[in-house]
C-alpha cells in the first residue's frame, strides 16, 4: 500500500527536508548574489556616470601606471569576492545534499553577513549623489535580501544538525 508516513519521526523528517532545502536554496542565492555583485561593479564602471578613477577617488595627477596597478588590484578583489560567494554557496549546496560534512563555510557566511549588514548604513551617507537614489534603494534591497539568505542558511544548517541528533 502507498504510505504517507505519520507520527513524530516523519514530522522530524519533514522538518529536516525543509531546512535542507532552505540551505540548498540559500547556497544558490549566495552564488547568484556574488555574480550580481560583479556585474553591478562592472556595469557601474562601464555604463555609469563616474569613471573608475572617480569611483575610487584617485587624484587625476597620478600616473597611468598607478591606475593600471589599481585596476589589477580591483580585478583581484572582484575575483576574491566571487570566490568567497562561490565557496559559501557551493559548500552550502553540498552540505544540504549530504556530500559534505564540514560546516566551516558557516564561519565565512557569518563574516559575509556581518560585512553586508555593516555596509548598509553607508548607502545613506548624505554625501552621496542624490540623483542616484533609485540605485541606492535597489542596492539596499539586494543587500537586505542577501543578509536574509545568509541568516536563513546559517539558521537552517544548525536546525539540520539539531534535528539529525533528535532522529538519532
Amino acid at each position, binding site marked *: *500500500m502507498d*504510505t504517507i508516513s505519520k507520527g513524530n519521526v516523519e514530522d522530524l523528517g519533514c522538518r529536516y527536508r525543509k531546512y535542507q532545502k532552505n540551505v540548498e536554496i540559500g547556497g544558490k542565492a549566495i552564488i547568484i548574489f556574488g555574480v550580481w555583485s560583479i556585474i553591478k561593479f562592472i556595469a557601474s564602471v562601464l555604463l555609469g556616470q563616474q569613471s573608475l578613477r572617480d569611483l575610487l577617488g584617485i587624484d587625476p595627477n597620478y600616473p597611468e601606471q598607478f591606475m593600471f596597478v589599481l585596476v589589477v588590484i580591483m580585478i583581484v578583489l572582484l575575483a576574491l569576492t566571487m570566490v568567497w560567494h562561490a565557496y559559501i554557496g557551493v559548500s552550502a549546496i553540498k552540505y544540504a545534499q549530504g556530500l559534505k560534512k564540514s560546516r566551516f563555510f558557516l564561519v565565512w557566511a557569518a563574516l559575509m553577513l556581518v560585512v553586508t549588514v555593516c555596509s548598509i548604513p553607508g548607502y545613506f551617507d548624505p554625501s552621496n549623489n542624490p540623483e542616484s537614489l533609485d540605485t541606492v534603494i535597489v542596492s539596499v534591497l539586494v543587500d537586505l535580501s542577501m543578509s536574509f539568505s545568509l541568516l536563513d542558511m546559517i539558521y537552517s544548517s544548525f536546525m539540520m544538525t539539531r534535528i539529525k541528533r533528535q532522529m538519532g
Partner: protein
Amino acid sequence: MQEDFHYYATYCAAYLAGYSHEESLEIAYSAQFVDLCSRTFLSKIGAPLNAATTQLQLEMMDARTDIIGLQDITRIWAAFHFLPQDLYAQKPRRSKRYMQKYRLICGPNGDLLAKTVENARGKSLQHVGIAMHVLADTWAHRYFAGTPSLVINNTEHDFVELLDVDGEQVERPVKFRHSPTAADDLENGIYTNSLFQGNENSIMNLGHGRAGHFPDYSFAKYRYMPAWGDYQEIEKDNPADYEKAFAQMVYAMKFLRGELEPGASSAGVENICSGRGAEVRGAAGEGERIGSYSCIQGARCVFFRTGKYDEEVLDKYGARIREILTKRQLIASDDWKRFGEELSGHTVEDFDIEKYQEQYVNATKDGKDKTFIGKFIRGAISQKGMVTEEIHKSGNMHAGFSKLKRVRALG
C-alpha cells in the same frame, strides 16, 4: 495507465464481472479509446469536438494557458484521467487560488468516483468502459492533478526506486533525462520525465509529467516528494494499487450489471427509493458518505460503495494478477492478453483505433448515435459534463461550468 491495463486488464475484469466475451471487448475497447479520442481524431471522422477525452502532445503544445484554455485542459484531464478525490478538501493557511488546485488532486474512492460509476448505470457498454478507465486512473495517477500547476504537480528531483532484490527491499536513486523518444531503461534506472518549467500554468506541469511514466508502470514502487506535500515523502506501491484497481473494476462492473445486493442505510434497513435520489451516510461511520442512491423509483435502492473490492476474484486469481503486475517490463499487454484468453477461451483481438471509424463515418446523421463511437461520444460528454458540474458546484472555476443535461436524458 497504459494499454496493458486499460484494454487487456479491463477485458479480464469485465469477463470476471460476468460480461460476455463480446461485451468485454466493447468495454475494454472503450476504456482504451479514452486515451486516444482526441480532437484531431474527432475532427477526422466529423464527430463533435467537445467529446474529446484526451489531448495529443501536439494539441497541448498549441493549447492556450489563459483562463479559458486552462479550463478546457482541466475539463478533459480531470474528467477522464485525474478524477479529483475530494473537491472539499481543507488545508490550513492556504490561499483560495492554491486550494482550488489542491482540491483537484486525483485519488481513489472519492465521491466523484461513485458519481462516475452511478452515471454509467443503465447506459451503454461504451459508457461502462469510460467509467472503468476513469476508475483505474484514480489509482495510477493519485497524488497528481489534471490541471497545469507547478505548485501541485511538481516533484523534487530526488526519486528513489524501491526494488525487491532476493526478498529484500533495496533503494536505487532514479536518474531522469528529458528525452521523449528514448525508452526508459529499467535495468539501469534511467527514466524520462518532463523538463522543469517555472511557469505555474505551463502545460509541462500537467499531471504526472514530472514523475515520468512511473505512475503507469504496474511493477513500480518508488518514493518521492510532491510539491503539495509540505516536505512529506510519498511511497507509491503500484502493484498493490493496480491490484486494488482491478478488484474494484470487477466490483464496479458487477454493480453496473445489477448483480450486487441492494445497499442498506445507516439503520441497516433497505430503502425504497423515492425517485429523488439521496446520499447515504453512516454505516461505516457517523456522517461518512458511502454511496449515492441509484434512482429507480419504487425499487430497492442500490448504490455504489467506494472502498469495496471483489475479494472473490482476488482469492481466486490474486497470485496470477500479482505475478503480471510485479513483472518488470515496459508494458504487460502480452501477459494480460494471455490471462484474458485463458479466462474466456476466446482470442482477445489487439486494439485497433480504426475498427469503428467507418461505421461512424458512413452512418446517417440520425444513426450516428447508435454506432459504437456515437455511444462512446454520448458517454464521454455525459462524464465530462458531470465532473465539470461537480467541480463548479464546489466553488472551483478551474473547469468552468457546463450546461448539464439530466443524466436520464442522455441515457
